[in-house]
């Protein structure tokens, strides 16, 4: 029983990691209706920026805030310089550009910061909360941060006109222009916000998995799966999906099929869920009238 609880809790912690990256994917999807494969690498790169600042002696929260700001700018610049000129010519052309960005960020990080894993500090106490042996304080803190980001994102999309405009622009850019939305800017803004959310995820993930250029490679797949299982148009769903995938994967690996095939089986289950519920567990089913 003790081991079972430990598996579930450690699954929740890894699930929190998937959830935080999934939120960045939801953000960019809401703003552009695309899934950015380079999102994880961008977050990784921003985390290196944070590491550089911390290494230079910045206080943690100053570096934290500065990284978010830098990530935002970085996202906006990428959209303006790289994505916009490709424009709406073809989704696959944009996907190829994403792949290009992915390898560029990965390679640059390795080149500049080397591939040696680096410890990344946590803002939370080193001692586990309440002396438990299951979860570190950072694990709990990171989940808390993810939930805060989730609440902010939800409020942003639900209650602000800008959030509404962003969703509208992603769904139907032509109509969005016709109600006066500057679609170019909502997209750039979406990129900026997604990068900012991603950088928070990066800074929360790095203390758990260590900072290295391949930090996000495995996580992105799970985050992608979590976002789709939960429903990519729904931040709550994405976070729930993250936790679900994290716990499911642990329990399958520990009790059902062993560790060798846990990724495979987890993915088969996820695809199975999508076949039965194509919009995800918590996604909105879109009704179309012809």
């Amino acid at each position, binding site marked *: 029983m003790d*081991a079972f609880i430990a598996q579930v809790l450690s699954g929740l912690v890894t699930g929190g990691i998937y959830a935080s990256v999934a939120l960045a994917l939801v953000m960019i999807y809401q703003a552009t209706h695309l899934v950015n494969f380079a999102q994880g690498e961008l977050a990784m790169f921003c985390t290196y920026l944070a590491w550089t600042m911390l290494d230079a002696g910045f206080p943690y929260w100053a570096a934290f805030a500065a990284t978010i700001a830098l990530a935002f700018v970085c996202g906006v610049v990428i959209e303006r310089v790289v994505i916009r000129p490709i424009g709406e010519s073809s989704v696959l052309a944009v996907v190829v550009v994403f792949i290009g960005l992915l390898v560029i960020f990965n390679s640059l990080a390795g080149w500049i910061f080397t591939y040696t894993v680096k410890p990344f500090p946590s803002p939370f106490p080193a001692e586990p909360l309440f002396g438990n042996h299951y979860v570190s304080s950072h694990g709990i803190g990171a989940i808390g941060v993810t939930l805060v980001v989730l609440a902010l994102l939800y409020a942003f999309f639900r209650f602000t006109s800008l959030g509404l405009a962003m969703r509208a622009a992603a769904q139907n850019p032509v109509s969005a222009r016709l109600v006066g939305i500057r679609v170019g800017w909502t997209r750039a803004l979406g990129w900026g916000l997604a990068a900012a959310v991603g950088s928070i995820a990066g800074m929360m993930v790095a203390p758990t998995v260590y900072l290295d*250029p391949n930090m996000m490679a495995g996580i992105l797949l799970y985050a992608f799966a979590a976002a789709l299982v939960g429903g990519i148009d729904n931040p709550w769903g994405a976070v729930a999906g993250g936790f679900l995938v994290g716990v499911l994967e642990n329990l399958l690996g520990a009790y059902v099929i062993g560790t060798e095939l846990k990724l495979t089986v987890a993915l088969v289950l996820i695809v199975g869920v999508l076949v039965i519920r194509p919009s995800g567990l918590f996604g909105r089913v879109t009704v179309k009238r012809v």
Partner: protein
Amino acid sequence: MKTGSLLQATVLIGAIALATASFAQKKYDPGATDTEIKIGSIMPYSGPASAYGQIGKLHMAYFQKINDEGGINGRKIKLLSVDDGYSPPKAVEMARRLVEQDEVLFIFQSLGTPSNSAIHKYMNAKKVPHLFVATGATKWGDPKDFPWTMGWQPNYQTEGRIYAKDILATRPNAKIAVLYQNDDYGKDLLKGLKDGLGDKAGRLIVAEATYEVSDPTVDSQIVSLKGSGADVLINIATPKFAALAIRKVHDIGWKPVHYLNNVSASVGSVLVPAGLDKSVGLITVAYQKDALDTQWANDPGMKEFVAFMAKYLPDGKLSDALNAYGYSVAQTLVQVFKQCGNDLTRANIMRQAASLKDFQLPLLLPGIKINTSPTDFYPIESLQLQRFDGKQWVLFGKVIE
């Protein structure tokens, strides 16, 4: 030290004798001329294993140093190091390019078991030396079937057997849990361990768990292994995962006897990230000095290495154990060249590589020597156990052959 220098002198004399003997007749195969020796190397500069590309960068820096000092017997070393992205098909393509198009004398330190497996047969069919491959798989020391292929580092199975021997000697009733990477390297080391435990393996090993390099953490595996009630943990993981495992073992309050494989014995890239306090008591085998280990701070060999790094590879980190590794391999190759003298044929390269006798290197642990023979294609076979005391590795026991 006395015997050491005596041996070195003997080797030197031997080398000079060989050199003078062959001065009369210069013999070359493709890639070698009076002024240059052209060799090739295949490294994963891109792709999932690009961390190892550092070895290739070190080689280039080291041969630069050799060339700056006048080369070997007046010949400069030209290293063509190419990228295969850790992909076997690309490795085949690159090997063919190096051998057929660039006409290198041989291929040196191609990296990774899958890539080397892919070119193993080709190199031997072409009779081109496939020298000091950068992988610890056991199959590289098979002079009967593959006379043109030779490894360098202690192979994984040997390492596994040493852990087995130590466990049997110190804890005959151990309950062993194994964490290993689900690939050739993990399985090879595990096989060595099981072979070493012999018929007791089935009884002593109570739990096994694998991880994939795409896994974010190994938390779940460690929790499962702890749940098996094991009191010994064999940690067969690459640096990042080894560090994750060390930290998790400590954090969940598990206190097994923890054997850490040599691949991840680096203080800088594993124990520091894991936390030095959490690493106390780890046991590993070693053959090389660790650059961040304070006990070697005044060691002449280490100082030489540090000076080399500062001059030729200033952006390389001492904490990256791959640098020290690449340095020692490059030095071994230079020794082979010295022994070859002016007979730079492929056959002679293999002959000389297979006649390294008690050769010592500045970064190898005291007492560890390189020995090869026409029937022994494993250059380094001796290792020593060491335990981490919270600050540095402390050697214990004897050098194990």
